[in-house]
């Protein structure tokens, strides 16, 4: 049997030799095999549909949909398109269309600017048609050239011809070649996701702190998974997308994942973007005690020692109440710190920024309750939570999570006792960023939100929590024990658990040291008397 196999193998080898050693002509007629590393089976430059001049985004989309017939329909179901999300637990209607935050506050009446990050074209006001297929923007996520841009102010449309913007400003936005971009489409990348998500809050690293342009090609120290020279994860490696719906959510985050690692072939209904989805629930091999820690502490707490580690500062506070100042000539003011970062703008107020920030920590069970425009708020010593993070040490669903807590002061209506959605962006007379006049900006914004406005405004202190989950450090940079097991514990504010050293009992220490001290006193006293009395004898 074995001999027969060897003989067959020899025969095959010699046959192969015959082919390869055949006439030179025959060899040339053999086409080169395709490189194995192609990430796609389609070369879009060869598609007739894309060999035309595109003058607008929707024209490109129509061409895409001729082959990818169901793609727009898939997009229509996603948060990326709808900017709307019904939280099944709290029954709150959320999404960018509805929520109010303490950064740029709200998109209402500011669509043309904000929707430069919408996966669509033309959302310029509340009348946008969410059923339109051609207004789905394929390129925002599938551009591979890096040239695709959607400048704020164009309602999510790219600029195809050189355009002066704002009109009369003398600033020219260069037009981009949509044909070249369309022919080079491919998978989404850190750059395509990052074009919006690195810039949340209006600039690089502003909002999240754990996401900024340093993640476009990070070192291992910045992110062990996305390390451009190592594992080189894209966003999609964890945020595993199916039917264009991207996994992972800030409205209903998975605070505690006890379902273990996902396995091929098994129906895993859980969130694929959690740490556990790959690492399982007992990932610490050499120090088993850490697995016990991981039953109460989110992986992120130890493995993300600080955020904003990539050299890009994140905003920590934003005080809208100081906005609106003008210089002696009546012009807008911009103040920068020693590092050249903006710390005051007439349009926006005062900021503080920080790099390498130690997170704050809180019990978190994944339940997030937003303060919406319809919710009543009271001005008090306590900051009003923009999003209240649920969690307690005893609900069995909470873990200790690292958070960026963003604190600010923003306009609110002291009569109706609600937050306010001002009209900020826009090249018109009522836009706050142009005319610095709250009395004009607020009624326009509130009307667009469909919310009542009393005509009076004040400023209210708010805070918003952002669970930290990106910028995972290499394991040797994870938190050491003493970061928490010390009197200056990082978890100083965490209630409901006993943390050795942090929770040393002061009374016990006092009694203990007293006993030790009295023993010493007794010993020295006894010894001294012995020495003195021995001299007498």
């Amino acid at each position, binding site marked *: 049997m074995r001999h027969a196999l060897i003989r067959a193998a020899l025969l095959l080898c010699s046959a192969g030799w015959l082919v390869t050693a055949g006439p030179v002509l025959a060899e040339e007629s053999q086409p080169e095999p395709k490189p194995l590393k192609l990430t796609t089976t389609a070369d879009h430059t060869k598609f007739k549909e894309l060999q035309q001049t595109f003058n607008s985004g929707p024209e490109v989309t129509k061409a895409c949909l001729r082959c990818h017939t169901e793609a727009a329909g898939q997009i229509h179901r996603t948060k990326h398109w709808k900017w709307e999300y019904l939280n099944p637990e709290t029954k709150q209607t959320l999404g960018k269309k509805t929520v109010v935050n303490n950064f740029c506050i709200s998109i209402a009446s500011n669509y043309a600017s904000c929707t430069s990050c919408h996966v669509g074209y033309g959302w310029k006001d509340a009348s946008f048609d969410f059923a339109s297929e051609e207004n789905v923007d394929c390129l925002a996520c599938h551009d591979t050239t890096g040239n695709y841009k959607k400048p704020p102010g164009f309602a999510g449309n790219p600029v195809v011809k050189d355009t002066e913007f704002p009109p009369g400003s003398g600033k020219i936005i260069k037009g981009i070649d949509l044909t070249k971009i369309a022919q080079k489409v491919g998978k989404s990348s850190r750059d395509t996701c990052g074009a919006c998500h690195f810039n949340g809050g209006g600039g690089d690293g502003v909002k999240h702190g754990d996401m900024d342009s340093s993640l476009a090609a990070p070192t291992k120290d910045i992110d062990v998974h996305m390390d451009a020279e190592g594992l080189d994860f894209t966003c999609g490696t964890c945020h595993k997308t199916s039917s264009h719906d991207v996994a992972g959510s800030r409205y209903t985050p998975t605070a505690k994942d006890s379902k273990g690692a996902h396995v091929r072939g098994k129906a895993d209904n859980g969130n694929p973007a959690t740490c556990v989805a790959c690492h399982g629930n007992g990932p610490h091999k050499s120090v*088993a*005690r850490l*697995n*016990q820690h991981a039953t109460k502490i989110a992986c992120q707490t130890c493995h993300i020692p600080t955020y904003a580690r990539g050299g890009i500062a994140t905003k920590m506070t934003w005080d809208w109440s100081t906005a609106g100042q003008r210089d002696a000539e009546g012009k807008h003011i911009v103040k920068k710190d020693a590092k050249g970062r903006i710390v005051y703008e007439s349009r926006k107020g005062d900021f503080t920024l920080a790099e390498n920030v130690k997170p704050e920590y809180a019990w978190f069970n994944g339940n997030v309750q937003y303060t919406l425009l319809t919710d009543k708020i009271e001005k008090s010593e306590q900051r009003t939570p923009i999003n209240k993070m649920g969690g307690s040490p005893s609900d069995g669903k909470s873990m200790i999570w690292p958070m960026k807590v963003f604190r600010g002061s923003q306009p609110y209506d002291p009569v109706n006792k609600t937050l306010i959605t001002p009209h900020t962006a826009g090249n018109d007379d009522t836009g706050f960023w142009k005319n610095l006049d709250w009395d004009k900006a607020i009624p326009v914004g509130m009307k667009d939100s469909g919310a009542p406005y009393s005509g009076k405004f004040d400023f209210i202190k708010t805070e918003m929590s952002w669970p930290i989950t990106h910028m995972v450090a290499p394991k040797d940079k994870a938190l*050491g*024990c*003493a970061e928490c*097991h*010390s*009197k200056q514990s990082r978890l100083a504010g965490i209630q409901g658990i*006993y943390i*050795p*050293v942090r*929770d*040393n*009992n002061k009374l*016990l*220490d006092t*009694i*203990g*040291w007293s*006993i*030790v001290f009295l*023993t*010493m006193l*007794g*010993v020295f006293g*006894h*010894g001294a*008397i*012995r020495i003195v*009395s*021995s001299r007498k*004898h």
Partner: protein
Amino acid sequence: MTERIYVFKRFERFWHWSQAGLIMFLMLTAFDIHGTYTIFGFEKAVAYHTIAAWSLIGLWVFAIFWHFTTGEWKQYIPTTEKVLAMVHYYSVGIFRNEPHPFKLTQLRKHNPLQRLAYLAIMICVGPLIWVTGVLYLFYDNWAAWGLGRLSLEWVANGHIAGAFMMLAFLIAHVYLTTAGHTPLAHIKAMITGWEEVD
């Protein structure tokens, strides 16, 4: 006129000094862990403390075996005889150069106060430290062992209380080694095995 009695056998001396070293190292690491000072830092101190604890447990297995096979355990049976005399000696007599009320022999190498003190350490402080210490080490397994309702805080505080008592004992114990007929007589005996008695 002094005579020499062989009171501490070779294993006993080995046990005593390795135990002394381990306990002092355990003390050193204990209060490092506790945050009183930083020598190794919490993480390393915990690791060293754990290794030293297991070493001491190992040593004790041998020591217990030795005590029972040699019958030396009887040295720790408490007695009320001459206890008051000893108290009087330590509180008054020692200053007046009075003779030691206890005559040491091979069969009674601990004076009555020593017996009581060692026994108290062995049945109170020791178990407190060991039970809480082992529970502390196996905190991860409490639920599996059906001890889920145990409070880590109580276990930890019990362990810390034990440590303070042991430290107080250590101080008194070291001091009392100087209470022989010369200040170093007891320590010499613990090293050589031979005690000089009047």
